[in-house]
Structures are given as structure tokens and as C-alpha cells.
């Protein structure tokens, strides 16, 4: 694929997102961005509606930390049914995570939100990545470098989701904690 095609994938995506009368073929959510950087197979499974084991506690733990941290100083927004973000009193966009072990996927998710706000809605924001249990925060902002990281991610996601078969099995250090573990390996 040459550079023109690469560019046009992102352009086509943006054009569809900006147009109130149509949707992109593969709408990209924040969760998909996260999955893409964690495990492409997980992303493919999720895009095909493979269900996960709802009885595991990790999901519940994540929701708990999210719902019970800083709740007085942030407001939740749903945008186009695509992204769900929290905006702080200061105006920064905040993403709350249970732990910092998957730092890159969390950072990319937040960067995607910032990119989406800027490119689709023409709103410029900075971001804060927060790990309340670790009492840790990190500032995240959109610049030339992070912008191109987001665009590479969008191209990558569209490529993975449009494959006919799931990406190959691959043992990763966090497979044991993955919600798709059972469906993936059985």
C-alpha cells in the first residue's frame, strides 16, 4: 500500500465522520483503539460480536474504579455514539484506568478522543490519564507525533477489522487476565 492510499484511508474516515448523513464503514470507538494496541485478535473478536464471560470480576472492578473516582469534578459526554469521555472542571479530557500496566493502549485511547474532538468537532483539548489507585497522573497532548500515531492506529484498526479471519493466536503476558481468554484458546 503506498502513501497516498494510507492517507486516503484516514481522509475517508474523517469525511464520513464529519458528514451528519452517513457513517464510516468501520466506526471506531475508544475501546477499539485500546484493544488494537493490546491485542489485534481481541479487536477482531469484539468487532464480530463474540461475547465474553460476563461473570469475570475484572470488568466489574474497572467499572467500579471508573465510577467512583473524582466523580464530583468531571462530567461525562457521549459523542455520536462513538466516544464516551469525561471532561474535568479544568476543561481537560480525563481517562481513568485501574492500573498503569497497559499504559500505551490507555494513552492511545485518550489521544484518539483528543484527535476526534479536534478533527471532527473542531474542539481543541488536552488530556489527563489518571490511575487513582496508584495516585498517578500523566498529561497527554496532541502534536505532530501523537497525531500520526493516532492516524496509524486508525489505518491499523480498519485493516484488522476488515480481515475475513481472526489474527493468529499469540501468547501474550496478559492473556491470563483477558476477558476473551476462554474463547480465544479453546
Amino acid at each position: 500500500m503506498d502513501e497516498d492510499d494510507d492517507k486516503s484511508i484516514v481522509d475517508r474516515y474523517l469525511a464520513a465522520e464529519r458528514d451528519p448523513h452517513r457513517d464510516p464503514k468501520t466506526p471506531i470507538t475508544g475501546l477499539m483503539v485500546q484493544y488494537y494496541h493490546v491485542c489485534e485478535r481481541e479487536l477482531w473478536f469484539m468487532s464480530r460480536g463474540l461475547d465474553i464471560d460476563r461473570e469475570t470480576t475484572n470488568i466489574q472492578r474497572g467499572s467500579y474504579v471508573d465510577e467512583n473516582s473524582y466523580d464530583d469534578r468531571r462530567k461525562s459526554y457521549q459523542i455520536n455514539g462513538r466516544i464516551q469521555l469525561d471532561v474535568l472542571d479544568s476543561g481537560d479530557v480525563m481517562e481513568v484506568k485501574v492500573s498503569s500496566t497497559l499504559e500505551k493502549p490507555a494513552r492511545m485511547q485518550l489521544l484518539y478522543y483528543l484527535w476526534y474532538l479536534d478533527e471532527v468537532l473542531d474542539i481543541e483539548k488536552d488530556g489527563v490519564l489518571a490511575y487513582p489507585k496508584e495516585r498517578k497522573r500523566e498529561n497527554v497532548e496532541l502534536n505532530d507525533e501523537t497525531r500520526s500515531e493516532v492516524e496509524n492506529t486508525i489505518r491499523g484498526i480498519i485493516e484488522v477489522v476488515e480481515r475475513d479471519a481472526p489474527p493468529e493466536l499469540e501468547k501474550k503476558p496478559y492473556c491470563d487476565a483477558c476477558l476473551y481468554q476462554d474463547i480465544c484458546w479453546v
Partner: protein
Amino acid sequence: MPKDNHHIFADGELSRNEGTLRIDTLDGETEYLPVESVDTLYLHGQIDFNTRALGLLNDHGVPVHVFGWKDYYRGSYLPKREQVSGNTVVEQVRAYDDTDRRLRIAHDIIAASIHNMRANIQYYDGRTEDFGSAVDRLEEQKARIFDTTEINELRGIEATARKIYYRCFDRILRDPFELTKREYNPPTNEANALISFLNSMVYTTCVSAIRKTALDPTIGFVHEPGERRFTLSLDIADIFKPILADRVLFRLVNRQQVGIDDFESELGGCLLTEDGRAAVLEAFEETLDRTVEHPRLERKVSYKTLVRTDVYSLKKHILTGEPYRPTERWW
């Protein structure tokens, strides 16, 4: 934490008490059952219940299996589906409707079922009896599977294998238990009664596991959708009967955990008494909780989890084309 099944034998009333289940039995006892700790609820007695109790069970995704007179399976109350996926059902129906895809899945199911029968016979071969020829004949039936191009023919192989298999039971079971012929509706002797009861427990275990996925329980691949029960559960149950029902049967009889006096004969049929059923269910539940090291998941999983992962594997096959690996005893 894995949740347990809960069995209610008494007659009485099941109600909701705030966020918990309450059971008032006719002999004046009251029991509180935290609904969060229950995987599946089994009602063996005459139980009155109302929509409030069902609502609580529904909120926690707990299926209820109801057994009627002498523990004949009567039906299930299933919670509202948490997993809904139009895509999954469409693909499941497509797989059913495509002769090649359906046959491939049916082949795999019957092959695993015969493999598990053979594993049981092999276990007893040389231990108490010589089952060499039965082991060989089961192997022959299994080898024929992949040449079949018709579901009927495939079911014929399954039936032949099951006949060879059940014929060994008489020699495995300690006297005075005997099984010269598999008979049900109603079972004619003690061994038949035990097999019928245990098989119905395997069936409901599969119903519960399928409910946790978005698969449609009425569309099976070996059995036809016209049959009265959830045909996908019948398919999956065939894989697990040798593992979950028959081994429990052998153990109960040979260790004399059930005896002839745990049965009563009525109206030409032979059925378990209430004490007998309690003993059987204790052994069955203990078996569901047994664990085995899973080579691909690289962790210990219970037999109950194996039923669930089997269904996951089928679902994955239907949606992605990756191989379905029905559970074949490897341990």
C-alpha cells in the same frame, strides 16, 4: 469465584426477601439463599413461586430447572438473555443450513462422544474385565464417521456405538445392578433409572452453559430442530454423558454409595427415592467441581467449566471458522 448449583428437594415456597431468596418449606423451616452465589437453581420438590422471585433470579442471570413427579425433567425458566447477538444466530442458522458445515460440526460432536465412551471402557479394560473387542469396535465406529455424508447415517453410527458401549455396563456395574438393555420412559430397572436421571442432569448443565452465550439452544447440528427439547443441548450433552453421567454411575454403584433400597418400583417403572436422588446429586455436583489441567488454557478448569468452554469453542467455530474442538477426555 465459580458459583455452585443449588438443589431444593423440599416442598414449599420460594420467594424474594429484599435482595435474597427465601425458601419456606412445608415442615416449617426457613432458609435464605444469597442469589449471587447460585449458578443454577434446581427445584426437585413441589415449589410455589411468584414473579418477584423469578425477577430476582432473572436479575442475577440464574436459570431454574424444574423437575416434576419422581424427578422427571419438566422444563426450565431461563433468565432474560444477557447475550444477544443477531450476528451469532444468523451464522448459527447458516452453519446448520449448509450441508457441509453442518456435517463437519456433527462429525466432530459424534467423534468426541465416541472417544469419551471409549475412554470409559478402556479405563475398565484389564481392570475388572476384558473389554478389548468393545474398545476396538468403538474405534471402528469412530473411524467410519468422517466418511459419512448424511446426518442420518451419522446418527446410525452414534446409535451403534452407544449400543456397544452400554453392553459393557452390565459387567462394569457391581451386582445386583444390571444393564442388559437401555430403557427409559419409564426406566425399567435401577441402572436404567440412574442413567436417565444423570443424563437429565447433564442435559440441564448444557442448557445453562448455552444460555451464557448468544447461541440459539433450539438449533442443533446432530439432532433435528423439530425435537421437543433444546436440540443444541442434546448435541453437547452427548459429548459429556460419558464424562459427567456414566463415570458417576459406575462410582456410585461400585462404591455402594447407592443401593437397591434407594429405588422404588411403581407402575412398571423404577425410580430413585428422595434419599437416592440426594446421594446421586451430591456425587454429580462433586464431579462438576473436579478440576483438570487444561493444555491450551494452561490452568486448572472444572468439568463444569469444560462444558462452557466447549460451547465457546463451537461458537467461535461458527463465527470465525477456527476449528471446533469438542471436549475429548485427555486426562
